[in-house]
């Protein structure tokens, strides 16, 4: 997989902090975009690249934690690193539970920030890879006939052909044909791969009817 250039979004109402953090991140070769408020960020046109958000927990308007929720709801799955003027244990716990990468207190320790940003980018990369994979699998899955999908899903559950034939009221032979077609189209080389694909697609059990 080719790695895209990651982007770090810095959101802090304090321009000086914003600039200093942006400076530091750029000094390690990261691409940085900074915003004075959550609103500015949400309205910006962002490049489709892996990245993460460095967010001051004390923001004017909505608090950092509320903003984190808004991100999830708006389908912006970027990891968040909180920075705060003072350490508040309960606030940091809540932030981490909501999926924050890290909760850092000011003044920021360089390495902690860089590690966290790196971790955030890595997590976003992984998420993006996963998303891409699932999208490909979904594409392949969509190319299957409905019978092939049925058979593929049931194979994914580990059932033998005989059982599948019985369940679908087909001959074992017919099942074999559909099975080979489906695996070929899905580019699955082994039963293990089929099971994983079914899992990624969310069609592993009992969901066949829904598809």
């Amino acid at each position, binding site marked *: 997989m080719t790695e895209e250039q990651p982007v770090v979004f810095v959101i802090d109402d304090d321009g000086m902090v914003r600039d200093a953090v942006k400076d*530091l991140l750029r000094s390690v070769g990261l691409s940085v975009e900074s915003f004075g408020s959550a609103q500015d960020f949400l309205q910006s046109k962002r490049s489709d690249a892996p990245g993460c958000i460095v967010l001051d927990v004390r923001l004017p308007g909505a608090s950092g934690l509320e903003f984190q929720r808004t991100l999830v709801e708006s389908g912006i799955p970027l990891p968040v690193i909180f920075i705060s003027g003072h350490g508040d244990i309960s606030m940091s716990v809540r932030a981490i539970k909501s999926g924050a990468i890290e909760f850092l207190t000011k*003044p920021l320790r360089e390495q902690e920030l860089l590690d966290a940003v790196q971790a955030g980018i890595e997590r976003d990369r992984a998420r993006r890879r996963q998303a891409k994979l699932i999208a490909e699998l979904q594409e392949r899955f969509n190319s299957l006939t409905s019978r092939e999908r049925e058979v593929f899903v049931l194979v994914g559950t580990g059932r033998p052909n005989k059982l599948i034939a019985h369940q679908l009221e087909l001959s074992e032979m017919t099942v074999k044909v559909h099975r080979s077609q489906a695996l070929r189209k899905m580019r699955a080389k082994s039963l293990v791969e089929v099971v994983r694909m079914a899992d990624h697609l969310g069609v592993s059990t009992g969901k066949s009817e829904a598809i």
Partner: protein
Amino acid sequence: MKRANTDAEDCSHAAPELHGNERQWREVFEHNPATCFMVDASGIVLSVNAFGASQLGYAASELVGQSVLKLVFEDDKEFVLRKMSLCLETPERSNSWEVRKRRKDGTMLWIRENARAMWWSRNQLIMLIACEDISERHWGAMESAQLAALVSSSDDAIISKTLDGTITSWNAGATNILGYQADEMIGQPITRIIPPELHQEEKQILVRLQRGERIQHYETIRLAKDGRPVDISLTVSPLFNQSGKVAGASKVARDITERKLAQQALRETTARLRTVTETAVDGVILIDARGVVLMFNPACEKLFGYSADTVIGENVKMLMPQPYRHEHDRYITNYRDTRDPKIIGSGREVIGLRKDGSTFPMDLSVGEARQDGESIFVGIIRDITKRNLAEQALRETAARLRTVTETAVDGVILIDARGVVLMFNPACEKLFGYSADTVIGENVKMLMPQPYRHEHDRYITNYRDTRDPKIIGSGREVIGLRKDGSTFPMDLSVGEARQDGESIFVGIIRDLTSRKRTEAELEQARAELVRVARVTALGELTAAIAHEVNQPLTGLVSSGNACLRWLAGDAPNLKAARGSVERMISAGSRAGEVIRRIRALVAKAPPLRDQLNINDAITEVIALIRGEIQRNRISLRTKLSTDVPLVLGDRIQLQQVILNLILNAVEAMSDVSPQPRELSVSSAKDGPNGALVSVRDSGTGLDGAALDRIFEAFYTTKAHGMGIGLAVSRTIIQAHGGRLWAAPNVPQGAIFQFTLPADGEELSSLERMQSASAVA
């Protein structure tokens, strides 16, 4: 009379000359129906005729030889002597006079005497006296004179009139009563004094008079001269003429205005008395000396349930139950015999018996009066059932009050105006440990320790003299002295009451020991709260400051890191590095600005400038955190010098500094167990005008490095400290123109001290210096 005189003359002439005819003359003389005396010049009777002697009740022989004056009424003797002398001086002339004589039996008669002296012989004068009894005439004249005098001097009006009503006489009484003079009225018609509406009445009177009737005590009205009506009682009698016919009338009128008024007054009094009696709320009974009821008023009827008719005429005993009934006769008899007024007087409480047999308490007052020479008794009766109920209620109230007092949780003491204890309730006994017997009668001072004991007399005296209610009122906190010598705090409320015209004082006492304990606990809680609030406030302040400082700090550090990175490697990005350094400088400047702002913030609130006693400020702070000190088992010593001058300053700010220093000391000692935890707070004079306050602890102390930095903001040696208290404290002290510093204590711990100038001018100059240094 004339005739008698003539006879006497005849006698006197005939006697010497007709000597020869003496016998004949004697006969005439003897049987002359007029009395004839012949007396000598000295008045001795020479001869008297038989008629004369018998007229006076004597025999002639009894008179001859006696002085003729013997027969004269004593008062007239001198008069007769004079007359006889005159007669003797002028012989042959007749003289006559009237004189009173006495008969032998003592009765008096009026005699007209005609006397003539003549020569019996050459040298002898004799006197012939002829006497005529004029008594009858004399008395008659006298009678009419007396009558006239009576009429004229009578207070009653006596008027006579003719039958046609013309007034013919008018006496002084009539003038007196009716105002008219006699000459005004005689000849006037009687109708002038009769009111027009009564003219008819006068005619009727005349008719009755013509029939010969007499009108007696007829009450009517006549008009006085001034037109005023006069009440009179009239008696009219007919006057007859010589022929026996009614010719007129005499009226006797008596002014009865006063009698009328008196009668009217009496009637009114009686009516009023009746009304009073009838309407009296109190019962009124009249009994005679035997106890028989003469009167029984309506109030009595109500009281006893008997009607007056039933009771009047009965013995009053019927209204009394035993044993009063039995005693009553004895009372009455005893009073009649001995005049011992056992039953007379007011306000005996006795029992009355009603018709229905029930009894009631009554107040009986008995008075005695005389009626027709007999004693009668008046009884005034008041039903005192209600009063008795009231008295009972009073007794019950008193009993209840006693119960309340006896069972009261609070002590109740009653003292008189001299401070002598009159009452001491059980709660007091418990409070003070004395029994009531011990304390009652003693001076209340015994329950007070000095200096209250000493002051108490003054209080009482002062209150008595000036009525200045220093001791009256509620809620003074004083100290009580128990029997065992221990003392306790108590709340004393004192009230004044009047008893028999004297002031008495009621003291209500509440033991404050437990309240004091509660107060102490409350104090601790409050101190804790203050500390928590202080920490919280400091926490918030610190958080705000931390954020403010953290921002530029974050910028500084991050930019510094970035700068290093730009400079690292084979091809350092100098341009970027320069940018980073510029940001660092900017961030550093901003951090400095933040610090300046904080200092300005503290300095901005201009300290109040009050003269204050720093010792008071310290005492208050200590009171506030005494709980904290005790909880940490720290022994506190305070040495507050009395010669510390007053300082100018903001009490609250200075107290914050003191509080901060003491709390720091307390915290510093919280870890030093088992070493002694000793806290010492002292004040002293500093230089000529300043004050020095020291807070010493035996805590963990400060090492040299710490001593240099503790006043820096955010520097702390404490596990949970914010590092702000001392910095703020120093700012406050400096704003007051003073100094705050720290030094190690010996053998261990720390000393924090600050000075404050006292003089205002010095302060302001220091203030200028301070603000100058703050800007720099």
